[in-house]
């Protein structure tokens, strides 16, 4: 150990801080999480698969994935737009807008949920106009999409914005001297460069949306088979003391989250490599 430490330079405290990190991480995160898998293994395979293949569970998985996907798509498009506007243009109140983008990070999800519900309900500020067009938002799948768009919004903006701010404007000048129009420059030079960040932001927003609970429960209406998302179903199973059912669904969801995390980490590593190479 002494030799090992010596090789790391002569700064003190590696053993202590590392030990503390590992113990704290294990006690608070790793052991509790592994309990979920442990619990899942006490179920028989038939039991496990039976729980998952239940039509209500499958419907909730479908609702969760579809609404998260569309929310992340909208966030990808508008996230790039907002990041672009903030990074490239000057306008009054820009600093405030820049700050407000992080609101979904700072505002408790329950508050976001009830506020969105009040706005998009049939008699709400926005909902009443949409109702005239026959569009119902609150208590429909559209409502879930609104809530998930709200909570995922900062992810794309905050991954794309720094890339745009560090962007070498000479590349755009080079494209101009070579005769490229503004639109061509955007689609062929700027956008390909932003793509890894956009995909990362998309993946982050999607992953967050899949697990989101607080903002959705108020606006979704929670109708089984229609507007019931996976986290809500887990909650319902828990309230019915169906721990096995909750565990089975949670296990599937957790595995999906891990895969997303690995993808995100890979993407982030790609971006860093890309940037380091310039």
């Amino acid at each position, binding site marked *: 150990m002494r030799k090992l430490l010596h090789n790391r330079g002569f700064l003190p405290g590696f053993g202590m801080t590392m030990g503390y990190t590992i113990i704290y*991480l294990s006690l608070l995160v790793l052991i509790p999480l592994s309990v979920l898998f442990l619990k899942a293994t006490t179920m028989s395979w038939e039991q496990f698969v039976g729980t998952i293949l239940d039509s209500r569970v499958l419907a909730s998985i479908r609702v969760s994935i579809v609404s998260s996907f569309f929310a992340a798509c909208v966030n990808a498009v508008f996230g790039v737009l907002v990041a672009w506007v903030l990074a490239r243009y000057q306008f009054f109140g820009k600093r405030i807008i820049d*700050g407000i983008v992080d609101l979904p990070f700072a505002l*408790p999800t329950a508050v976001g949920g009830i506020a969105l519900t009040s706005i998009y309900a049939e008699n709400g500020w926005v909902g009443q106009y949409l109702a005239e067009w026959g569009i119902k938002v609150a208590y429909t799948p559209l409502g879930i999409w609104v809530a998930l768009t709200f909570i995922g919004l900062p992810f794309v903006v905050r991954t794309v914005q720094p890339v745009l701010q560090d962007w070498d404007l000479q590349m755009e000048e080079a494209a101009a001297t070579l005769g490229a129009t503004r639109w061509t420059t955007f689609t062929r030079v700027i956008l390909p460069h932003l793509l890894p960040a956009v995909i990362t932001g998309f993946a982050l927003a999607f992953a967050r949306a899949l697990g989101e609970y607080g903002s959705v429960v108020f606006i979704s209406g929670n109708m089984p088979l229609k507007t019931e998302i996976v986290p809500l179903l887990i909650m319902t199973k828990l309230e019915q003391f169906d*721990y096995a059912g909750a565990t089975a669904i949670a296990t599937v969801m957790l595995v999906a989250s891990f895969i997303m*995390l690995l993808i995100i*980490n890979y993407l982030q590593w790609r971006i860093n490599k890309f940037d380091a190479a310039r």
Partner: protein
Amino acid sequence: MKHLTEPAYVRWILIGVALLFLALFLILPLIAVFTEAFKQGADVFVASIADPETLSAVKLTLLVAAISVPLNVTFGIAAAWAIAKFSFRGKNVLLTLIDLPFAVSPVIAGLIFVLLFGSQGILGPWLDLHDIKIIFAVPGIVLATTFVTFPFVARELIPIMEAQGKDEEEAAVSLGASGWKTFLRVTLPNVKWGLLYGVILCNARAMGEFGAVSVVSGHIRGMTNTLPLHVEILYNEYQFAAAFAVATLLAALALVTLIVKSFIEWKTERQSGVEEEPYIDVTGERAG
């Protein structure tokens, strides 16, 4: 320069669309919280806030944050020191593991503690025997909150401390400073803004966490209700004005968080000398 930007009308359309989107999804909800809170007048608002149940929810929320934030700050500093100032194998694996709680749905975060400490959980019988209550009690809320806010401080500090390298610390140690002194006098001043940034984000989430806390709390009024849970109960009982009144407390917390965050960003931006528009060359020569 016109080759570096779009025609004015395109610019204004883009700004307009972006602002409209942000207004619909961010600004309107925020305004709605405050308007709804005062819909039935200031009296209802004050009464809702002064309600003993609200006050006990405030107390519990503060208590939970006061325990979980310092725990995660300590962890964040230790992890950042070990990861940023030393090289070892498996660093990336460790970083991924620290990120885990971000990837876990809040509901699952609550569930795992129920499975561990609940009456049907692994340690349940033992806890029952010794009459220790964790689930549907304050310790469960603290645990779940600490879990979901686990990565905030570490994630903020690690990149900053890595970027700063270890030259200054090595210099301090070579001049005879102890490890603890080196940390306090050299490292900490360098990362103080980053640390504060992590702390306020960690705190905002700790006070606002809903899903995970909802699973482990049992919703016992005046006992295990944090502010977000209290909002939910009031809302589900159709006491909308009261629900929004309590929500204004949390919205105010969010605004303070955003303001402090912007302030820190402004402060660090100025320190690192990053200009708003790096492409305007004042000297006539490209800075490169």
